[in-house]
């Protein structure tokens, strides 16, 4: 066996990167609740930009997104625009004002701005639901990478991942997480870009993937790559790659729901509490999106390269002649071939009656370097990048969970008298519990993970986004309006998911059959967050008209957060 196999390289790279993460955690141990929740509030815009980018780009962005696009073609744009457009909303409408407000958590803002414990508790419940949903998916991503590249079983993979996250999240809190995320950004962006550049040169002779996928093929045919892929797709019965198949209204709704959901996700918002000044919050939102866009503009190129390579490698080729990676992915169950007509040749077509090959879209990025026959160290680098993406996001989410419990629930609601030391201990303890729960769901993934992710974005869009926007831009918005809006928005969202994803109201038959015809306004559950958000806004504005205005102190608070001068120190005043 080759001593420099993919597996050896993966062990080496994973060992190096994990040592780096642990080293950073030890160096940046949290000493106070301020360190633990907001990294002491003195993170530079660049560091925060990188940390936000790593925090945001999850296993889904790194491993799944290019794969999803390569199967969805044009329709994949909903994720590209949805998951980046939200940052414009964040930078222009949320981040600067929340930084000026200067507390620890999103429920902090909701609770103070709407002078209400109930509002805070509704926000805590939403934050926990959204974050747990998300974190289970990350742990699963860690498990998949470990099982494929290190050939350990998924359970051990998840356990190793848990141990690492536990170590640096519990020890370092936000401070440890921030600086590990900076390192993780570097690892994951290299791991994504280097193979993409290699493949782009291979296929089109252009070293810039964003440009390469609009260039002509380097095989001398002079044909544009996208034209070739459109042709190949239609030959096999799929719709043309650049056209897509979703309805226009659904594309609009999903894009809007993802944008607004992104801007309302608590683990993204709290990153902006860690910088020093209001202007830093604006700048680091810009830097974060710039750093995210490096990967997000490359992903559609990778999708086109991978799709073309995949079709050319498998379509109408004898099963016996498949390369080594094909067998390895078959062993994980993520590629599945059944020779229906017994001719020993792979028929990969759209028609389900004749199709013989099922490819899980999650493997496209991970298998891409192997499909393109890149060197082993590059294949291993992609594995290390996938781990970095999953771990960084998991850590950010765990912090939201732990802060929601120790700060919003214990300190602000149940035991206001708790000491600084006690709160820090509670924060660490709740991080431990959160890791354990996340790990459990990583090992025993609920069958409804995909459905629940739509719910996570939908909930963030339906709850936090309108409540925060109105809290900043509408001085007259009061407790009654905000709470009624959040409850109405969340209830609408949950109802729609239960009806169309789980089929709760008709015994599951209709949901299983994918009753797209019955969708309200033709909008899928993934896009329904956009409607639920409007419901929240409408209910909040109507209820507000019939109830008392907020107290003068709260109106002053709103005036105060609108201007940048002298951003308050995040958290309690120094004694």
């Amino acid at each position, binding site marked *: 066996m080759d001593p420099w196999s993919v597996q050896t390289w993966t062990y080496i790279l994973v060992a190096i990167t994990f040592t780096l993460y642990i080293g950073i955690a030890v160096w940046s141990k949290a000493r106070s609740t301020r360190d633990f929740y907001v990294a002491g509030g003195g993170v530079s815009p660049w560091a925060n930009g990188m940390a936000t980018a790593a925090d945001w780009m999850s296993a889904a962005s790194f491993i799944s997104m290019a794969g999803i*696009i390569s199967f969805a073609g*044009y329709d*994949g*744009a909903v994720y*590209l*625009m949805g998951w*980046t*457009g939200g*940052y*414009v909303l964040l*930078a*222009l*409408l949320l981040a*600067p004002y929340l930084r000026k407000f200067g507390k620890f958590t999103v429920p902090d803002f909701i609770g103070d701005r709407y002078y209400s414990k109930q509002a805070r508790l509704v926000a805590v419940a939403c934050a926990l639901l959204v974050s747990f949903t998300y974190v289970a998916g990350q742990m699963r991503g860690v498990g998949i990478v470990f099982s494929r590249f290190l050939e350990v079983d998924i359970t051990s993979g998840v356990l190793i991942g848990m141990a690492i996250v536990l170590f640096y999240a519990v020890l370092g809190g936000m401070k440890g997480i921030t600086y590990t995320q900076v390192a993780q950004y570097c690892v994951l962006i290299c791991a994504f870009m280097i193979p993409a550049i290699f493949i782009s040169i291979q296929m089109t002779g252009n070293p810039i993937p*964003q440009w390469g*996928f*609009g*260039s*002509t093929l380097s095989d001398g045919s002079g044909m*544009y*790559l*996208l*034209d070739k892929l459109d042709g190949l797709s239609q030959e096999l019965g799929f719709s043309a790659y*650049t056209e897509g198949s979703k309805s*226009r209204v659904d*594309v*609009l709704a999903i*894009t*809007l729901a993802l944008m607004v959901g992104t801007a309302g996700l608590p683990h993204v918002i709290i990153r902006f509490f860690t910088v020093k*000044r*209001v*202007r830093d919050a*604006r*700048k680091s*939102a*810009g830097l974060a*999106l*710039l750093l995210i*866009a490096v990967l*997000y*503009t490359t992903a*559609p190129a990778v999708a086109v390269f991978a799709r073309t390579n995949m079709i050319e490698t498998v379509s109408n080729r004898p099963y016996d002649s498949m390369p080594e990676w094909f067998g390895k992915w078959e062993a994980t169950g993520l590629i599945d071939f059944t020779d229906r007509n017994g001719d020993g040749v792979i028929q990969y077509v759209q028609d389900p009656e004749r199709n013989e090959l099922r490819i899980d879209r999650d493997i496209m990025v991970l298998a891409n370097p192997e499909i393109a026959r890149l060197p082993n160290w590059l294949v291993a680098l992609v594995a290390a990048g996938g781990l970095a993406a999953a771990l960084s996001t998991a850590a950010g989410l765990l912090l939201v969970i732990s802060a929601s419990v120790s700060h919003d629930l214990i300190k602000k609601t149940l035991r206001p008298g708790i000491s600084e030391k006690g709160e820090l201990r509670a924060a660490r303890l709740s991080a431990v519990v959160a890791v354990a729960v996340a790990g459990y769901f990583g090992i025993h993934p609920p069958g409804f993970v995909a459905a629940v992710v739509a719910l996570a974005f939908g909930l963030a869009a339906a709850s936090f986004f309108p409540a925060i926007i109105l809290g900043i831009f509408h001085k007259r918005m009061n407790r009654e309006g905000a709470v009624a809006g959040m409850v109405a928005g969340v209830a609408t969202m949950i109802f729609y998911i239960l009806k169309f994803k789980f089929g709760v109201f008709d015994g599951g038959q209709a949901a299983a059959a994918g009753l797209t015809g019955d969708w309200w306004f033709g909008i899928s559950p993934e896009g329904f967050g956009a409607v639920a958000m409007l419901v929240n806004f409408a209910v909040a504005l109507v209820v507000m008209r019939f109830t008392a205005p907020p107290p003068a102190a709260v109106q*002053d608070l709103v*005036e105060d957060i*609108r*201007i*940048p*001068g*002298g*951003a308050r120190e995040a958290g309690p005043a120094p004694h």
Partner: protein
Amino acid sequence: MEQDPRDLEKAQAYWRENIRYVAILLAVWFLVSFGAGILFVDVLNGVRIGGFKLGFWFAQQGSMLVFVVLIFIYVWLMNRLDRKYQYDE
């Protein structure tokens, strides 16, 4: 905290200018993504630049590039506004 009425006036003027910037930038945000990338994608796909159909390019590349630029324009505008109203920290 006693508020000087002139401070209040200044704060409101600052806020109005801020809202104007935000409205203009969000209009562009809407046009490139929901406009060029979704609503008018078929029309724009009639135009080709190299191997890209223009609508497809806006949906999968152009909109994201514009988003990044928009935020940095906002950063620049607001830093200028902060100085004008002496709110810079």
